[in-house]
């Protein structure tokens, strides 16, 4: 049987997705044709002959090339590496330092934190959703750590265990459980979760992307103070059925060096948004998103790679989709369900991709609003 390969053509290149390894490979169209032919079990002699004729090169060179494509691209991505599964069937521990309750719309959930460490991982992002103790919760999470492994239970059911070096995957899993619960869609109804800031006007959404430290969250905070709605920060879910950006109400993480810019807009950052974890010697600041319509979801046609560069002039330009794709994919979780991959590639193909660097906040706000208002 053929292996599952999915192909999409974007900006003069072909993207091939391999189901076995969940990798995306950007190649020339001819190489994609070769990979598809190999997958259809077409004899190498026939493929080599075709390549030799179309490029007007000796058959031997064409044959070597086909063999290299097979070894380097096809074979490597159609044989699966075995991964060790961790089985964990114990019951959760019973000693917890803090029990906290949270409300998102009509959903109420309880989280038991074993220590400051687990609380530090989750609570600051959701503290604006905290409510007094109640018996009427639908989900009960228990989080504890043993030997540097953090363990998560949901309603007494084991969800997973993550080593400290993978702790951002624990936080991601917890956020994903909330997304699924809030929007009542299981994991395979999500196209992906993007490491971005999601903003919207009343009609559509836009994603701000960029490496950590480029100022995504700061830009988002400035934009939400200027009339746009924050749909999600850092963890932006997009569904499969409508390809809409959905809201996720975790608070916006504020770095110390953003404070001078943001304090005039958000005086509360000085005190109320600050969390001290003395034993961990950590101070973190989080700003609640301004959206309280937790069902909000909107289409997205535009993504912007944003960067704050001190003392720079505003530089705004369209970038190639291939360039955007190579920056987006390694930073994202994309569903590995083949149907969802097809939808993701088709959705991405129709996005407008931009790059924006700035130092003047007003000009940045104007540019983002223009994109959302289709004035570009």
């Amino acid at each position, binding site marked *: 049987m053929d292996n599952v390969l999915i192909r999409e053509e974007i900006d003069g290149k072909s993207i091939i997705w391999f189901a076995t390894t969940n990798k995306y490979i950007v190649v*020339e169209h001819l190489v994609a044709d070769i990979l598809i032919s190999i997958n259809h079990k077409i004899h190498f002699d026939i493929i080599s002959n075709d390549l030799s004729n179309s490029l007007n090169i000796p058959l031997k060179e064409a044959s070597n090339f086909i063999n290299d494509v097979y070894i380097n691209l096809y074979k490597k991505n159609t044989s699966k590496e075995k991964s060790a599964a961790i089985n964990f069937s114990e019951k959760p521990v019973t000693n917890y330092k803090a029990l906290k309750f949270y409300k998102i719309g009509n959903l109420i959930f309880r989280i038991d934190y074993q220590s400051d460490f687990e609380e530090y991982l989750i609570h600051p992002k959701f503290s604006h959703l905290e409510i007094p103790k109640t018996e009427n919760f639908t989900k009960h999470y228990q989080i504890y750590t043993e030997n540097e492994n953090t363990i998560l239970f949901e309603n007494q059911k084991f969800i997973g265990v993550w080593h400290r070096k993978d702790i951002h995957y624990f936080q991601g899993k917890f956020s994903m459980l909330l997304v699924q619960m809030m929007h009542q869609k299981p994991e395979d109804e999500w196209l992906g979760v993007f490491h971005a800031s999601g903003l919207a006007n009343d009609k559509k959404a836009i994603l701000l992307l960029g490496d950590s430290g480029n100022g995504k969250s700061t830009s988002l905070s400035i934009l939400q103070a200027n009339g746009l709605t924050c749909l999600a920060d850092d963890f932006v879910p997009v569904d499969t059925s409508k390809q809409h950006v959905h809201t996720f109400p975790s608070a916006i993480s504020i770095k110390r060096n953003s404070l001078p810019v943001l304090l005039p807009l958000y005086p509360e950052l000085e005190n109320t948004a600050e969390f001290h974890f003395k034993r961990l010697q950590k101070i973190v600041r989080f700003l609640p998103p301004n959206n309280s319509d937790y069902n909000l979801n909107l289409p997205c046609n535009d993504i912007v790679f944003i960067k704050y560069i001190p003392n720079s002039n505003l530089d705004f330009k369209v970038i190639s989709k291939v360039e955007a794709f190579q920056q987006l*994919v390694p930073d994202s979780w994309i569903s590995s369900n083949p149907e969802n991959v097809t939808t993701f590639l088709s959705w991405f193909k129709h996005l407008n991709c931009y790059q924006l660097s700035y130092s003047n906040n007003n000009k940045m706000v104007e540019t983002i609003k223009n994109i959302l208002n289709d004035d570009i």
Partner: protein
Amino acid sequence: MNKDINNNEHKEEMTRKEALKKIGNYGKYTALTALGTYLILNPKKAQAASPEPPGGGF
């Protein structure tokens, strides 16, 4: 990967550059050399929050 590099941004840039690869060496057959350039991209293995900033380890 160079272990001395602690900056996430540098790491990510390096990963992207390393993602650009070439199949074989075809000498004078420049058409094949151009054809054999490819980019390999790994999405995250699971949903993730932002990793801790450099120096922010526990």
